[in-house]
């Protein structure tokens, strides 16, 4: 099992750092899956995560100048690692002016991802800072736990409002309540509602637009023939929503959510080279 990769382009490095920062705001630990073409950051929906799950996919070619990977076995040419994204985020934080960043899987005292940042320095040789991030190797027998979640049979799919606005609204609501209700319909209308004993606040968004999902095998059948005005709603943990919105450092190209009434809210955020899906289960 081997892995080594290298980034030399500063723009790619900053992009990669941003992705890692977003991930680190969503969860304390996650699974990193490495394949020949892609990297995945996965959080499976265990109770410990509050039932929330995440699937983030990157094409390695868009970030790395060099990328070599050898999986656990020829037929299973993949590596699954458990890591704390905050560590990776910190390692890359001071690499703004780096000449190169190399990442390597090593096993000195324990399995580690060694991030070596080569920085310019006044002396004849470059300054090299290494960060050894401890990782856990996930055995093949539990790889099934980390499969890509299927798109739920949603009731309503709608584009999200400008994330900056949505974030400031949710942040203020967070001070008042622990839960938030997201409701939306197929007419491009979305409401964010909180309700407590003392106060209830609703923010209305209009003209958001609904993504046109092509019907495949009738899996979106629950959305067909649905009353356009009828709202699908889900009551979710406000903190999870706030973390998702706060972690977005760059505006995504496309941001939308699929609501399964009273069951789950599925957020999809697409950037040029990264796609992030985040599932927040509905609470009673």
């Amino acid at each position, binding site marked *: 099992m081997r892995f080594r990769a290298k980034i030399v382009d500063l723009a790619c490095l900053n992009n990669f750092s941003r992705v890692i920062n977003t991930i680190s705001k969503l969860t304390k630990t996650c699974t990193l899956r490495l394949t020949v073409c892609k990297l995945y950051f996965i959080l499976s929906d265990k109770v410990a995560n509050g039932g929330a799950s995440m699937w983030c996919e990157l094409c390695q070619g868009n970030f790395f100048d060099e990328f070599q990977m050898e999986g656990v076995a020829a037929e299973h040419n993949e590596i699954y690692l458990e890591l704390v994204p905050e560590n990776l985020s910190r390692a890359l934080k001071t690499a703004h002016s780096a000449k190169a960043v190399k990442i390597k899987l090593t096993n000195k005292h324990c399995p580690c991802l060694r991030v070596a940042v080569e920085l310019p320095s006044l*002396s004849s040789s470059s300054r090299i800072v290494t960060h050894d991030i401890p990782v856990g190797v996930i055995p093949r027998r539990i790889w099934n736990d980390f499969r890509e979640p299927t798109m739920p049979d949603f009731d309503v799919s709608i584009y999200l409002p400008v994330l900056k606005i949505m974030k400031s609204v949710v942040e203020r609501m967070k001070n008042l309540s622990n839960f938030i209700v997201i409701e939306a319909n197929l007419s491009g209308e979305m409401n964010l509602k909180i309700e407590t004993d003392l106060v209830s606040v609703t923010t209305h968004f209009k003209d958001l637009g609904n993504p046109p999902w092509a019907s495949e095998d009738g899996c979106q059948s629950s959305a067909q023939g649905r009353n356009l005005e009828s709202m699908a709603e889900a009551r979710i943990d406000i903190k999870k929503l706030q973390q998702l919105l706060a972690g977005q450092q760059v505006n995504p190209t496309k941001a939308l959510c699929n609501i399964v009434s009273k069951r789950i809210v599925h957020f999809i955020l697409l950037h040029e080279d990264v796609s992030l899906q985040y599932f927040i289960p509905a609470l009673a």
Partner: protein
Amino acid sequence: MKCVIAGGNVKVLGRAVHSLSRIGDELYLEPTEKGLSLRAINSSRSAFASFLFAPLFFQLYEPGGPAPDTERFRCKVHMKSFLGVFRSLPSLDKSVGKCLILLKHRASRLVLQLHCKYGVTKTHNLAFQECERLQAVFDTQRCSSRLCAPARVLADAVVHFPPTLAEVTLGTGPGGKISLRNYVEDEAELSKTMVTELWLAEDEFQSVTVSPGSCITFCLKEFRGLLTFAETSNLLLTIHFDEPGRPVVFTLDDTVLEVHLVLATLSDLESSSLPPPTNGVSHLPTPADDFADDLESYMVALESSACEGATGGPPSPTFPLRTPRTAQSDPEEQEEEEDGAVPGTPPQKKFRSLFFGSVLTPGGPGLAPTQEVLAEDSDGEC
């Protein structure tokens, strides 16, 4: 005592106070012939800093006091109060022209007066407490290793470590390279904690005199405070160190300012020197216990009494001065002191702060008639 600081030096004083505030909660002031000394020490007695401003630093400098033979005035004030006067460095720069420091004995107040633009004068009257001399015991001449570099080099290096990091290990490696690595306390932590390491080339330093394979571990927090000061003042920083367990001394030298920061280092008895690192991976030193929380035991009481201190002899190099104890000392400290006095280090691995000496006069306690007792000792020991 009376002194006046003018122009840009007010900001320098302000930055010095900021730096000292990272160390301890109380600021010790001692005016001497050589200049005004500001000092601080942390609660666990493992960090000590002193800033000595020469008379040339001031527009006017009168250390004052009565006849030349009597003891000079010295006091301590709450760090927060003193820092409050210099809190905003940009505004010190922009609007303060002069700063006056005056001791008002009769009113028992230390007056800090800032003369600002537009005829505005801000006067701060700080309560002070008289105290003994605060002096760390150290001797840079006896340190076997010495590094000298522009502060900026070290500031650039330290930025890669997280702000919350407690301890860092400085080591020497092959090819004259100097390494900095975050310290992880025990083996169990190692598999969970990210380890950051970087190497500084010999040519980044102005001078390097080290014994190969030596390394020391010290607290980063207090060091960072000094680095910030040094970096903005563009000064050369010299690091004097010896074996693990012996204090590390950081010094900054200028024509009008002398700065010392003394930090205790983690004592490690089992590995006297590390094997030279390979591939940039060093063996970590044998894990030591938590820094002792009973560092007091290695230190002679300083301000437990309101007694006058002696002018004191030159600081002893490594061990507390074996001055006779006064009646005030705790019996507990009495016996711990015996421990510290033994030249061999005790078996447990603990942080040593062997560098505080007592400057109590052998002549026993007794207040000089000219000194005012602000508050009598309630248990009447004095």
